[in-house]
Structure formats: C-alpha cells, structure tokens
C-alpha cells in the first residue's frame, strides 16, 4: 500500500497527487478524490484560519490511515491537510483513495474524512468578510455521530 501524508501551509494540486498515487499501479480500478474547501457561506466569510498541533497532526493522520488499511484493501492513500489562513474558495483538505473496486475506495475515503473531522488536531476559526476575526468553529454532533457509525460496524480484512 502506497501512503502519503502531508500537513502543510501550501496549496496542493489534486491532479499531480492523483498522478503520483497511480503511477505504475495497473490494478487500480477505482480512484476517489475528496477535496474539502473553505465556503464563503453566502459571502459571510472571507477565510478560515486553521490552527494545528505540529507533530501530533501528522501522527494522528497516520494512525487514521492505519485504521483504514486494517478495514479495506487499498492500493494507495494520500492525505494532505493544510493549516494557516485559507481564503473562501480555497482548498483545505485532500483525501485520495485507490483500490481495485469502487466499494473499498468509497468507504475508505468516507471513513478517512469522518475521522479527520474529529480525530486530527486541527481547529478552525472564522474570518468574516467585514475584516473581523470571528468565532472558533464548534465541533458538530453529526460529525461525532458519523464516527460512531463506523465504530458500530465490525471491520473486515477485506470487503
């Protein structure tokens, strides 16, 4: 399994990352990219400021990847999470999963995102269009619920 994890300030290029993951892997039948972006919320927000715990952020992501590879047979995974000030419309996070079949790729990508939301040490704060620094984003109960759903399903070595 090919795995690349990066916690970075710089933007990422999804096409480049996909190309890296797929090179010399003729048995990939399904590849999914998930990109999480900063929404403007109808013009209310100018940016999100993302604080992270250096060191732990990468460790936490790697331990989420380890969980995923225990449950699904994947050929490759890439996770890039940005920090710093991210303007509305810009990318925050990229998850790529590649597998033989679509089911594994979909479930793994969805699992990775659910875990990144609540188990990776990043915190978002709103920057408003009027120039003010807004509130820290609260954790959503629905994100915690999404996690619980995965915990309730028995993992399989390969589905």
């Amino acid at each position, binding site marked *: 399994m090919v795995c690349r994890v990066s916690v970075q300030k710089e933007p990422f290029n999804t096409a480049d990352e996909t190309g890296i993951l797929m090179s010399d892997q003729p048995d990939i039948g399904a590849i999914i990219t998930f990109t*999480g972006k900063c929404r403007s919320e109808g013009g209310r927000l100018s940016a999100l400021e993302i*604080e992270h*715990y250096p*060191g*732990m952020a990468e*460790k*936490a992501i790697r331990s989420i990847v380890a969980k995923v590879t225990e449950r699904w047979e994947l050929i490759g995974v890439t996770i890039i*999470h940005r920090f710093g000030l991210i303007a509305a419309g810009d990318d*925050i*996070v990229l998850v790529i999963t590649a597998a033989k079949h679509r089911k594994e790729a979909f479930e793994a990508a969805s699992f990775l*995102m659910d875990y*990144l*939301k*609540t*188990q*990776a*040490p*990043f*915190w*978002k*704060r709103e920057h408003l269009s009027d120039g003010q620094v807004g509130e*820290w*984003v*609260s*954790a959503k109960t629905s994100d915690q619920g999404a996690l619980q759903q995965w915990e309730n399903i028995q993992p399989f070595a390969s589905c």
Partner: protein
Amino acid sequence: MKLVYFAWVRERLGKPEEDICIPGEVKTVSQLLEWLKGQGEEYAYAFENIDVIEAAINQEHVTHDASLEDAHEIAFFPPMTGG
C-alpha cells in the same frame, strides 16, 4: 512538565505552552485539569467546563482517565474540527 494549549484554550490562558511543576498527587488527566483550574483566573476560565476539554499525552489523544506516568508533553484543546 511541558503543557501545550491550542485554539480557545490557548487564547483564554494567554500562552501557547509552559513548563509547570505538577504536585506528586496529580496522577491523571482529570486530576491535572482540576488542579490547573485552581492556578489563577485565566485557568479557571479556560477549564471552566472540563467536559469539553480534550487532551493528548506525548502527542497521542487520550481520555481524561489516562495516567500522567511517562508523560513529557501534555496538550489541552477544544474538540477538534479538522477536515
């Protein structure tokens, strides 16, 4: 002991980290939180609702009943909002 703080915990305390001497009877994360609450106004404010505070020991996410044995870096922060 090195303590590190993030997001609004950091802001309420007015510092991102500190080295602190913890009394020997403080043995778990929850005991440490209770003890910190008594260390001044800013600590009382940051830790007023201990239930919403998450912790990590040596950069690993832990629950409040985790032991501080072998801890060299303890972090406190609000629920994570990554992704």
